[in-house]
């Protein structure tokens, strides 16, 4: 890939990561000031378990929880791109990680259907929820495309992603699926941070029942 293009691509990824991390830290700081340590912990736990959603729509909550479990497995599997040496436990996650990657888009489509087709689901969903769901579907499908296409060298990609972790820009051949997947992840990080963290910091409050 062209050196200028690669630099722009890398800076986009760094920018999205920084926007997400800063948003998260600022949100935690703001909430800590408002609620105190114990209540902040309770709030995080409620957000992670989506207890508001459980009260709003049980089926949607079940789908969301299954989706989160699958997402955690896929996330752990993807850590191997940013670590060297890779721990044995992460290597052993390969098969379960592939199953989880296949389950992810199915659960996301179910979640989207639940949100848009049922009255109760529509009532507790905001436009931001739909945007995040659509981005996640695009990420999951591009990830599967990357898995089945298998025309992009993992060795080159690992060298590049490890370079990102070590704050170096390592040359990368032009791999369209990998670039698309990474840009979608960056877009998700930015959108999630803007909707969930920065909107709270600048005065807005999330709608009740948001996941």
């Amino acid at each position, binding site marked *: 890939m062209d050196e200028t293009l690669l630099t722009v691509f890398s800076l986009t990824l760094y920018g999205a990561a920084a926007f997400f991390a800063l948003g998260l*830290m600022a949100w935690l700081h703001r909430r800590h000031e408002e609620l105190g340590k114990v209540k902040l912990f309770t709030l995080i736990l409620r957000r992670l378990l989506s207890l508001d959603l459980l009260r709003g729509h049980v089926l949607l909550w079940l789908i969301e929880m299954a989706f989160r479990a699958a997402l955690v497995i896929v996330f752990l599997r993807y850590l*191997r*791109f940013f*670590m*060297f*040496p*890779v721990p044995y436990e*992460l*290597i052993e996650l*390969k098969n379960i990680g592939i199953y989880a990657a296949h389950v992810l888009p199915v659960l996301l489509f179910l979640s989207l259907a639940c949100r848009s087709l049922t009255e109760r689901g529509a009532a507790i969903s905001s436009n931001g929820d739909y945007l995040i769901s659509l981005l996640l579907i695009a990420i999951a499908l591009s990830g599967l495309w990357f898995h089945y296409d*298998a*025309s*992009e*060298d*993992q*060795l*080159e990609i*690992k*060298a590049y992603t*490890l*370079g990102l*972790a*070590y*704050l*170096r820009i*390592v040359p990368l051949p032009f791999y369209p699926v990998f670039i698309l997947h990474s840009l979608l992840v960056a877009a998700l990080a930015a959108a999630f941070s803007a909707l969930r963290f920065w909107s709270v910091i600048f005065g807005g409050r999330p709608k009740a029942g948001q996941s």
Partner: protein
Amino acid sequence: MMQKRLYIWLALLCALALASCDYPEKPVYEDWRKVTDSCTPYMVDVPIFHSPMSDWRVRHPKFLEEGVYTLKRCMICHESNIACNRCHDYVGVKRILPNVFDPGYSPGFIRTWHSVAPKEY
């Protein structure tokens, strides 16, 4: 304000520490003969069925999954710790541990497989 400055300095220090770490370079084979060391002296750089090499490296898991090649057949010329596990360890996929008790396991036993390819390949 002081606390914010402290956070910024901490973040900068972390970034500096990361940037000064030794970046683990990807494995490179300077001499392909080391990968297929049992096939010297007539071995060409890349044998015909591995050519082009970049394509082979990317697609070999699919070939193995689809049964186009078998692990046993690979082990005729290759020794897994030299040819497979350096990259497998780097990328974080399972190591190749050939069954040494398999009656067909004889790394490098047939030494002419690669050497039969014509020079131009």
